[in-house]
Every structure is written in C-alpha cells, then in structure tokens.
C-alpha cells in the first residue's frame, strides 16, 4: 500500500508522496486515489488520479553516505565504505554545492549523502564529521 511520506513513480519520475486523498464518483462509487508527489531530484510537482485498485510503481530509493576526498573539475571524489573511490558524481549546483566547496577548501571533513533512484544519483545532504 502507498503511504504518505512514501514514494511513487508519477509520469515516469521518482516522487515523494506529499498528499494522498481519495474521492469517489457518486455515493456508491469505488475509491479513486489522488496523488501529489514531488520529484525527489528536481522538486517538480506531479499529480495523478487513479482507481484505488490500480497498481502503482514504487521507485527503489537508496541512500549512501560517503567521505569526501576532493573536488576536481566539478566532480566529487568520494570514498565508499568498502574503500573504493567514486568519481562519477557531480558537485551539486546551488547552495549545497557552495557549502561543500567551502568546507572542502577550509579543510573540514565532510560526509556526503547520496540518493539514488531509477538510475539517477545526486548528492543531497552533507554533515560535518
């Protein structure tokens, strides 16, 4: 069953469910579910309405924390728990990206949380460690 705070695929995008309500056509009709989701990567809002018996796709969401090693050419170098280095993740744009750069330049140790869903992957949070 879908749940508020859970995830769902809307219009082919992985979304977090922010609103879920039901309605029916006529008093004796069957329930329809109205879903509002926010794309977990772009923040764009998507809506869908479907019969409540309908099956919906749910994205598999993975989150990993990595140690930041360095920043090069706009890419992050990250140390995984198994000791490998990943260099395929972009430095995020905007506030968070600046924050990471600032901390890195100041020589602070930073842990980066990376979220992965439907073969897309982005850094979404940092925490000093």
């Amino acid at each position, binding site marked *: *069953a879908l*749940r508020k*705070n*859970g995830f769902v695929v809307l219009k082919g995008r992985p979304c*977090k469910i*922010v609103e879920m*309500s*039901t*309605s*029916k*056509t*006529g*008093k*004796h*009709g*069957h*329930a329809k579910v109205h879903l509002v989701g*926010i*794309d*977990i990567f772009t*923040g764009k809002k998507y809506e869908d309405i479907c*019969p*409540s*018996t309908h099956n919906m796709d749910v994205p*598999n*969401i*993975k*989150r*990993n*924390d990595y140690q930041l090693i360095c920043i090069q050419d706009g890419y992050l170098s990250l140390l995984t*728990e198994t000791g490998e280095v990943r260099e395929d993740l972009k430095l*995020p744009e*905007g*506030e*968070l990206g600046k*924050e990471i750069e600032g901390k890195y330049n100041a020589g602070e140790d930073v842990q980066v*949380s990376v*979220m992965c869903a439907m073969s897309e992957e982005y850094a*979404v*949070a*940092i*925490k*000093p460690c």
Partner: protein
Amino acid sequence: ISSGNPTVQTLACSILTALLSEFSSSSKTSNIGLSMEFHGNCKRVFQEEDLRQIFMLTVEVLQEFSRRENLNAQMSSVFQRYLALANQVLSWNFLPPNLGRHYIAMFESSQNVLLKPTESWRETLLDSRVMELFFTVHRKIREDSDMAQDSLQCLAQLASLHGPIFPDEGSQVDYLAHFIEGLLNTINGIEIEDSEAVGISSIISNLITVFPRNVLTAIPNELFSSFVNCLTHLTCSFGRSAALEEVLDKDDMVYMEAYDKLLESWLTLVQDDKHFHKGFFTQHAVQVFNSYIQCHLAAPDGTRNLTANGVASREEEEISELQEDDRDQFSDQLASVGMLGRIAAEHCIPLLTSLLEERVTRLHGQLQRHQQQLLASPGSSTIDNKMLDDLYEDIHWLILVTGYLLADDTQGETPLIPPEIMEYSIKHSSEVDINTTLQILGSPGEKASSIPGYNRTDSVIRLLSAVLRVSEVESRAIRADLTHLLSPQMGKDIVWFLKRWAKTYLLVDEKLYDQISLPFSTAFGADTEGSQWIIGYLLQKVISNLSVWSSEQDLANDTVQLLVTLVERRERANLVIQCENWWNLAKQFASRSPPLNFLSSPVQRTLMKALVLGGFAHMDTETKQQYWTEVLQPLQQRFLRVINQENFQQMCQQEEVKQEITATLEALCGIAEATQIDNVAILFNFLMDFLTNCIGLMEVYKNTPETVNLIIEVFVEVAHKQICYLGESKAMNLYEACLTLLQVYSKNNLGRQRIDVTAEEEQYQDLLLIMELLTNLLSKEFIDFSDTDEVFRGHEPGQAANRSVSAADVVLYGVNLILPLMSQDLLKFPTLCNQYYKLITFICEIFPEKIPQLPEDLFKSLMYSLELGMTSMSSEVCQLCLEALTPLAEQCAKAQETDSPLFLATRHFLKLVFDMLVLQKHNTEMTTAAGEAFYTLVCLHQAEYSELVETLLSSQQDPVIYQRLADAFNKLTASSTPPTLDRKQKMAFLKSLEEFMANVGGL
C-alpha cells in the same frame, strides 16, 4: 411616538433602540467608562421600569398598525422598526435581582436568551392581549419574509417565557394553553411560507423545552392532542420539503434546519415516559417514521430524488474523502428517528424487515442478471447501474435507520439493549417459535420467506437476519467476481451495523437487565450455539472484507473496527479464538503476504492490535503459548534475522529489507495500541527488546528520514499507551531508551544540511513527534496507574540511589534539542505550536527547580517563548503560558536569589500580566490563570508592583476616575497585605480580583 408622523416615529424608535443597546450587557454597549458593576446596577433599574415602558409603547404602536388596512411603504417601514424593537425587548437578557457580582461578566457572552423576566413584568406579559397581538401581527405580515422573521422571533421568545413571572402552576398552564391555541389558529389551514419554517419550529421547540411536562399535560386534552397532531403534520411536511431542498441542492437549507429542530423536539418529548401513558405517541411516531423512510427510499415506495413535480433527478457528483458519511452527518436526525422507531416498534421493526428483505431479493436478482450478461458478452460495458445504485441507496438508509433503532452508540459505557426493544421481544416471545427463529438467523443465504413458519419468528432477530442477508448477497457477489459492481458504501454500512449490533446484543450480560427476552438469550446468550455461529460468521465477513476491499480504506477501517469489537471484551474473545479462521488470519498476517499486506498502514496497525487483544482471551497454557508463537514470535524472529545479518549495513538500503523494517515498525505501533492494564507487563517486555534494537536502526538509517520518523513514532506510541502503567524501574528503562534515542537523533542531525525538497516538512514531523514523546513521558506526573507497591519499592534507599535517569533529564535534554530547531515560522503550524506550548508549560509546572539551571541560551529562548505565547498567540496558548508563570515565580520565592536571571525575567512578566489585566480588553476565561500568576508575581516583586500602580494612577487626569482606581487598588490588596505565598491569602486575593475586575473593567 403618538405623533402619527412617520419620520418622528422613526426617530423615536431609533432613540429607544439605542437606549436598549446601551443598557443591555452586550457587545453593542459603547465604552463610556462605566464599571461592569455599575453598569449592572443601571441595567437592573432600567429593566424594571423603563424597559417595560418601552415595551408598552411598542405594543401600542404595533396595535395601532395591526388595526390599519393598506399600509403604505413608509408606514410599513415604521411598523417593521417597532416590530424589531419589540423583538429586542423580548430577547432581553434579564438580570435577576440578587446575583453575585462575578456573574455579571459571565452573562455577556450567552446567546439564544430565553425569556425570563422578573416578577414586575407579570401584568404586562401575562396579559393575554399581548400574546394575541403578536399572533395577529404575524398573520398580517407573514408574507413579508423580513418582517415575518421578527414577528416569529417575538413569538418564539414568548414561547420560552418562564421563571418568577408565573405566580403558580395554574397561571403557567393558562398561559401555555392560550399560546398553543393562538399558534394552532395561526398555522392550521395555511400554507406555510419557506421563510416561516425555521421560526415556527423554534416556537414549538421552545414550548417543548421550556414548559415542564406536568404543565404540558395539564392543558385541556383536546388541545394537547391537536398540538401533537400539528407537530406531527409539520414534522412530516418539513421532512418532505427538506428532501426537495436536497434534490435542488439549495444553499440555504431552511427546511432542513426546521426539520432538525422538530425532530429534536420529538426526542425531548418522547423521552419522558412518566407523564404520558404508554402508547400515547405511538401513532404519531409511526407517521414521522414512515415519512422519514419514504423520503429516503426511491420510487415507487418512496420519493427520494424526486422533484416537486415527480421528475427523478440523478447526478453522479464527485465526493471527496472530507465529506462526512451520512451516519455522522445525519446522526441527530437518525437518533430521533431511531427513538421514534423504538416507541412504535410494533410497526417499525416489521416494516424495516420487509423493506430490507424485499430489497435483498431484488439486489440478488439484479446482480445475477448482470452476471449472466457479463458471461454472455464479456467486455460489454453497457450495463446500466441506475437500478443497482437505487437499491444500494435504499439499503444504505434502511441499514442506518435499523442501526440507530436497535442500538445506541456509547463511548466508554456498556451499551444496553434499549428497553423498548427488549419489551417488544418479550411481549411476543410466547407466539414465537425459537427453532424457526434460529433457522432464520442461521441461514442468511436463503430467502426468509422460504423457511416454513417464517412468520412465527422473533421480529428483532429477523431484522438482524435481514441485514445478514444483505451481507450474504454481498459476499456471494464477491465470490462470483462481481466486486466491481458492489457498493463500498453499502459494505461500510453492513460492518458498521454489525459492530454496533455486536457491542450491544452479542453475549448479553443478563445481570444488567431486569428481564431478558428468551429468543435473545437463546440466540446470542453466553454458551449458545447461536453466539458461536454468529461470531464465526462475523469473523468470516471480516476476513473476506480485508482481502477484497483493501483498496477501500474506509471500508477496511470499519471492518477492522468490527474485529476489535469482537475481541476487546474477554467473553467474546474467548469464542473468537475458538474459530479456526482466527488462527488462519493471525498466521496469514504474520506471514506478510498478500492480500493482507496491501492494507493501508492504519488498518494494519488496528489489525495487529486486534490480534494482540485476542491473545488475552482465556486459553490453556499450551494454546496460549502456541498463539503467541504464531502471532508475536514471527515478528521478532524475522526482525532479528534481518538486523543480525553480517552485512546488514550494506543491505539496509535494499528495498525488501526496508519493507521488512517498515512492516515491523508498523506492527510495533499496533502492539502498543493494544495495551490494557492487564497485559501491559507482557507487552512492555516484548516491546522493550525492540526499542533497544530500534536505536541501532536510527544509526543505520540516519540518512533515511521516513524510517527515522517511523522509529520515533514507535517510541511515541509506547510512551503514550504504556507509561501510565509502568512502575518506577520499568519507567526508568523507558526513560533511558528515550534519552538514547534523542541523543542519537541529535548526533545525526546536528550540522546536517539537506537540499532535498521535503527537508522542511520532514523536520517538522520529527519535531512534532519528539514533542509528543516528551509530553507523553511527562504525563506520568499527572496520570499514573502503576502498582503502588512497585512504586514504594522504588523508594527503597538502595534503589533510589541507582537512579540513572529521571523523566526531567530526558525531557530537558529533549527540549534542549528542540529549542534551537524551533523558529517563529515553525510556530505557524497550529498543531506544532500547541504541542510546543503544552510541553513547556508542563515543564515549568513539574520541574520549576530545573529552569534556573538551564544553559543561558536555552533559558533565554524559553522565556522569549513564554512572552511570545502571552502576547501574540491564540488565547489557548496564552492561558498555558499564564499557567507556567505561577510555578516559576514560586520557584524564585523559594530560591531567594534577587539577581538570578529567572528573578529578573519574572519582573518583566509582572508588567505583562499587569497590563493584560488592567489595561487590555480582558478575556474573562483567563481571569483565574492570570490572577494566580499575578498574585505570585506581586508577592515576589512588591516594590515593582507599587511602582506600576503609581505610574498608572499618576497618568489619570480625571479626579473621579483617579479616586475610583486608587480605591479599587487599595481594596484589591487589602485582604492580603503584605502579600505572602499563603493559600488563604491567595484565595482572598483572587476573590478581590474578581471584584476589582468588575469595578475597573472598562474604565
């Protein structure tokens, strides 16, 4: 007034209206610097003399106008003004002659004033010509909807006349008889205007509510009968018009309002069985009941959805989940109709039975035809559902009425079989064949009329079995794969009814009744085949619904509530666990396989709760062991298997693992919900093991907010349901676990920066849950059912020294964590805001000694929060903050430090409370809380208080006001000089404060 000149008369009327406003104690009074007490005295003098004179003048004018024919526009405008003035007089809130001061303020807010004049009005109002005049006036102007409002309102006020104005019962009887005559003369034989409906029903409702039964029955019999006939006629007619309003989807539902009022009056009237002989109202009840049923059934039996000219209208509108179910939206109407149905049980129960049975047969036939059609041409979607929908809607209303007729909905109390129903069944039990009755009950798949001797069965049981027949048709349609044709609404109605019925009738406790009907005790009594059968049947229904209707959340929820009803009482649970189905359900749920795992999370939680409750039924040790092995152990085993895997860290983000964890956490919430005083020991130990592991999970899932949220929720539920039963050492375990939880949360979230779009929402939810957790932990200080022995054992010297954590530590740690995260923006969420202030008030009340020890930042934000709460939040929050001040000031007084930050802070609060009480428009609900805080603050800062008083007085220009204020302040503190923190003095002060408020309020 007597000039005959309309302009002058209008002016006179305006002056009088203004006078009335000024002397009344309403918000219309302008602020002219009178104390409330003085104002009250003026009002009292005014109402005895001048008000009466105004009324007499008004009556004269009305008399004059009512005699004239052909009023021109200007004249009728004057007429209308005087009518409104009369209404204002009759709605006057009379102050009784001897009433304590503090009531004066209270009276201001009351609405819907009933007419209770003082004795001096006797001659004026008991003069029958006055009453007659208002009837005459109404007859004259009733077609003018504006004026009719006023004239009917005047009559409604006169219908509520009571109090010392009546010298004896006789005069009250005369007045009432006269009034009813006038009323009947006015409304009989006329066609009521739309604009009259509400007014007329108010008149009747006032008569029935205000006049005592013995007065009502003392009026001439014939007159009383006509009155009740008229009431019956109006009720039925308003009911029909209300139905029309619904069809036309009118915004202003005047007939619905009038109908509600009359149905409520019926309830008041028939609930008294002392003054009316048995059966007095039966025929009337039959009529009202019939007309209600008729309005709710489709043609040809009824008139539902028919417009006035008989055209059927039907539209499929979108109904959102926020729309209340009919059973709640019309609960008042249904309760009245159900009550009338009981009074006329002889008629109504067989009527409902035959209507339901007939519709069951039709529904069955209709579904069969659909099935054949589908088989003949699969995929054809040309099925017309109109016929089905009409049947569903009919059955819907019939089940609702049946539910309200057969049983009451009680909260917390044991619902009893209504005496009328019991008597009805007993009365006929000699003509009833018990075996046939049981056969009717036990064969829901067969047509009732196909059973030989079906007419010699108990009617109440037959009505129940009619609902079971509906349920059976539904179940068969599901088995025939016709679920898509069924109505989830009807499914809901069925389980709602069965739950309501089971609570009252299933395994009746014979000790609760003087006498019990034999058919009832044979069919549903303890140790009967009947009750075992029906429990099996209900269980089967529950299981079927949960697997078929998982996508209809409301229906699934009603279903699982029925299941809880079956197991929450030990007697019923004992039978439930004997059913194999129950064990199957438990196993199936434990296996987390479809279809049960498709259920929404609240339904799954409640299902878990029911399964746990069932485990406390009476079983032998071996069975019990086996039961828990089936229900709880798999949960533990699966969970431990997952988290103890070597590579759990790496696997934890895999979808199956996450689902397993989520399901476990949900189940834990359900288990906590099942807590009762007699199972808390077992459940607490079981849950405690999990809680420790959950803290580990917090670490593993630190970057997965939805899981973190759910983990905190488990702690909230456990604390909410269990803390009040825990002895000291167990409570300590829980405190420790909560503290660790908060520490881990804090460690993982400190300095964390997120960009994901839902970050704010998620943080808000975490905070709300943490505050709930802290509040739940604190609630132990108010509500504690724990075994006192254990509490005492905890006080043994050895143990007390071992205390590692106290509630205060956890809570303050939590507050420490929350405060930096709270922002004024977050306080705009009303739930969060209320929860926050509830929490800090609790802390100030329970641990005032901890407040001065807080770190400086924390202390400052706490004080700032209090100030904010007092000055710019809702009145509820303001009240909470005021309540927090008293213990803080007392704490200061105890500590006797005059330079501590808390001492300085309380000085600032003194000024705030002083301003609130003396200068601002005062909310009387707050006087007590503000007064207590004020007194303790005054004790603490006497010099500052004197200074505040001096400053206020010196700003007064007017010597009279100056003197009154000065006197008032002197009196206020006179009984408590010097003020000390002594209960007696404090009470004296609070009393003087009330006087003070009455005296200077508004100055």
